[in-house]
């Protein structure tokens, strides 16, 4: 226990001193048990302030230090480092937050001063029982896992491999490329999406450091930063990509036709098929669910015609266990379900499409080979309506958030439409145009001015079919008039939502989700690519709506974080972890059940903490009826003393 505690009370210029009588705080604290040094100072975080900490420790032989100042999120590290320089363990230094939690939120000087004394006093009582801990060293596995093979995952994997790290890239579908592979052109440059993406896909397939596992999913994760153990399940590989010669004989004989998800359901495909010509791995694949029967084989025609002998119906799923040091989650987005937009005729009328379907219509690799034709009758639409914020920015009925990219892709769609159908008319219903980004505003302006797209500010209330036309009822709030357009096609700029399975992967990886279901970053400003779990990073639209350049930037940022992490010889883990008081433990295992990190096990009938897994949350403390477990430096004794200190008259 600390018996020579020092206290510094920071003025923070006037930030604290204007409300809190810092001299009085120092005077009162000086009277407390074990406080041997107590002073106030104008700016503790300044260089002389830190120097004063170092000097005070040395001159007064302090074994504990409290700085009453701003929030510990700001300068805890500063003062712990200063303490170390003074020869005192950083863990023997605590911050009393008398600025954010006191001087800034109270006006009455007496009340604020009284509260500042209590806060400081509690910190003194706590620090007096802090242990001088050493960080826990952990070895590192220099290999990373990337979950999701869209542009985010691809970029991360390439950057990591480039830095000399081995990468496992796991993709649920049979090709990498994700949603970007479905796009025709990209805003604002209108370059061909597949043309800029496919070189990266090929680079993935050719990179010896990247192990690509398509049709695979992460089943479970255990371990901790630097040392995760992942179980990955790969579906049965009925077509061997090494042997497949892409001759297409198999699909010619396949009797099955099902909607082609890679073409957003606009065309059909066979049970054995290749998603795209550019697919990586470059191989046909067999859709188990659509196939007439594999066990026992019902049809077997494809196997008969395959000269390469690439098809083997007896293949089974395989499960890998891999060790990795870091994980990047890049599971991407889905468009908000069309079925939820009944008022816009979605799902009812064949010519009401979502944005990705429209991309497929525009794409040369799509069903219409790049001609914009109505799915219902293959006629060229002469009047087309684009509806923005379809499902976005509607907290009552749909998604509360702005999906960020729809303004831009709608402008792109309208432009592309005009390029394909110069005599057609495009209308865009919008709430606002959000075109922040390099060249973005200019692009939108061009669509209006050069391509004559008519922008109507207002919401659409209803879309219904009448006389072979889609009647779009809306309002133009700028002119204050109701608008009715007889359209041939309606395109809904559906909101972006986290891809299906995001919640499951978050649970598997034990990372948090925000209220909206996107993966939660550790700090909205300062840690935008870190998840709340150390060693797990986020990239792309799984973390929130974003466009391609932003996704690529975040992917590279995540990669650089991983590179920095895995470049260390060993990792340091916070030592404020749970500690079992052996004689008190009865082995009831309530803590084992309560621990979210599986960090506690029973050894010899008593709870034992894996200090490396433990994050110090204290769930174990909260459930232990025997008080047989504590988190170091926030022990129950310390909390008890803090309660006493705060309430002592």
């Amino acid at each position, binding site marked *: 226990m600390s018996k020579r505690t020092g206290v510094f009370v920071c003025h923070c210029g006037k930030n604290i001193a204007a409300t809190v009588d810092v001299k009085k705080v120092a005077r009162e604290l000086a009277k407390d048990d074990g406080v041997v040094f107590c002073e106030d100072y104008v700016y503790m975080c300044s260089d002389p302030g830190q120097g004063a900490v170092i000097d005070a420790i040395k001159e007064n032989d302090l074994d504990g230090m409290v700085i009453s100042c701003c*929030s510990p*999120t700001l300068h805890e590290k500063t003062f712990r480092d200063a303490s170390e320089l003074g020869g005192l363990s950083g863990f023997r230094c605590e911050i009393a*937050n008398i*600025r*954010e*939690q*006191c001087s*800034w*939120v*109270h*006006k*009455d000087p007496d*009340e*604020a001063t*009284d*509260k500042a004394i*209590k*806060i400081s006093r*509690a910190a003194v009582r706590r620090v007096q029982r802090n242990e001088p801990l050493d960080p826990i060293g952990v070895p590192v596995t220099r290999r990373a896992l990337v979950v999701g093979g869209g542009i985010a995952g691809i970029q991360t994997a390439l950057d990591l491999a480039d830095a000399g790290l081995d990468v496992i890239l796991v993709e649920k579908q049979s090709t990498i490329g994700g949603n970007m592979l479905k796009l025709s052109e990209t805003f604002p440059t209108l370059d061909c999406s597949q043309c800029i993406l496919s070189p990266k896909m090929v680079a993935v397939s050719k990179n010896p450091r990247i192990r690509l596992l398509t049709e695979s999913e992460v089943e479970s994760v255990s371990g901790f930063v630097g040392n995760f153990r992942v179980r990955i399940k790969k579906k049965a590989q009925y077509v061997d990509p090494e042997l497949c010669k892409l001759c297409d004989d198999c699909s010619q004989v396949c009797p099955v036709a099902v909607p082609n998800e890679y073409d957003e359901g606009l065309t059909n495909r066979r049970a054995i098929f290749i998603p795209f010509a550019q697919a990586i791995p470059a191989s046909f694949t067999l859709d188990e669910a659509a196939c007439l029967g594999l066990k026992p084989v019902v049809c077997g025609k494809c196997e008969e015609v395959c000269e390469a002998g690439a098809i083997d119906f007896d293949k089974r799923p395989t499960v890998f266990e891999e060790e990795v040091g870091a994980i990047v989650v890049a599971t991407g987005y889905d468009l908000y379900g069309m079925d939820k937009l009944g008022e816009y005729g979605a799902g009812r009328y064949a010519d009401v499409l979502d944005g990705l379907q429209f991309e497929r219509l525009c794409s040369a690799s799509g069903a219409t080979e790049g001609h914009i034709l109505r799915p219902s009758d293959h006629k060229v639409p002469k009047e087309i309506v684009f509806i923005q914020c379809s499902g976005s920015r509607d907290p009552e009925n749909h998604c509360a958030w702005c999906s960020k990219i729809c303004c831009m892709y709608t402008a792109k769609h309208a432009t592309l439409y005009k390029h394909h159908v110069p005599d057609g008319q495009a209308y865009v219903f919008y709430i606002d145009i959000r075109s922040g980004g390099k060249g973005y505003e200019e692009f939108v302006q061009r669509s209006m001015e050069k391509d004559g797209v008519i922008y109507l500010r207002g919401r659409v209330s209803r879309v219904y079919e009448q006389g072979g036309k889609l009647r779009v009822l809306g309002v133009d709030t700028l002119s204050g008039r109701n608008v009715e357009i007889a359209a041939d096609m309606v395109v809904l700029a559906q909101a972006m939502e986290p891809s299906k399975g995001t919640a499951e992967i978050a649970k598997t990886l*034990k990372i*948090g*989700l*925000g*209220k909206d279901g996107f993966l*939660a970053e550790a700090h*909205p400003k300062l840690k935008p690519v870190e998840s*709340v779990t150390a060693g797990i990073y986020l990239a792309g639209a799984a973390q929130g709506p974003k466009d391609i350049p932003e996704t690529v930037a975040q992917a590279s940022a995540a990669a650089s974080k991983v590179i920095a992490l895995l470049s260390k010889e060993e990792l340091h883990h916070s030592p404020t972890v749970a500690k079992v008081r052996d004689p008190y433990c009865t082995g009831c295992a309530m803590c084992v059940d*309560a621990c*979210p*990190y599986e960090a506690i096990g029973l050894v010899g009938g008593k709870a034992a903490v894996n200090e490396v897994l433990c*994050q*110090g*949350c*204290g*769930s174990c*403390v*909260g*459930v232990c009826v025997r*008080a047989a477990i504590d*988190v170091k430096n*926030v022990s*129950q004794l310390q*909390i*008890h003393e*803090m*309660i*006493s200190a*705060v*309430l*002592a*008259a």
Partner: protein
Amino acid sequence: MPNSSQSPAPEAQAHEPRVVAFLCKWCSSAGSDLAGVSRIQYSANATPITIPCTGSMSPLYVLSAFNKGADGVLVSGCHPGDCHYMEGNYLARRKLYLVKQLLQFVGLEAERFRMSWVSAAEGAKFAEVIDEFVGDLRPLGPQTRLKAKH
């Protein structure tokens, strides 16, 4: 007889409630920081004690605070689903629901124990929670029921 909640003694009217606020480090403590950064003014009656997670709340912290004379005890953590440690707030919710039920059962004034979810982004809500709590406590006067009488 202890003070009745219906008719506080005259001196009780002037009593300034003393509140211990257990704040989880990641959400509610950060939320209180945001209230500070935003300069949102609120009552100074609550003294914060930061804990790693509401899941680490021992029921004894609550009982002990009342024993030592707290007029009110607040436990504030992350919204369900937002726990930095994934599950701690769910464990806390179940446990502290029972604590609250028990305290009410023996007749501690129901208003004296409160729980809230305040995220790191909810500085304004933090201030509201404290002000409302202190406002509700003020008419009750001093907490005499569980307080140690020395």
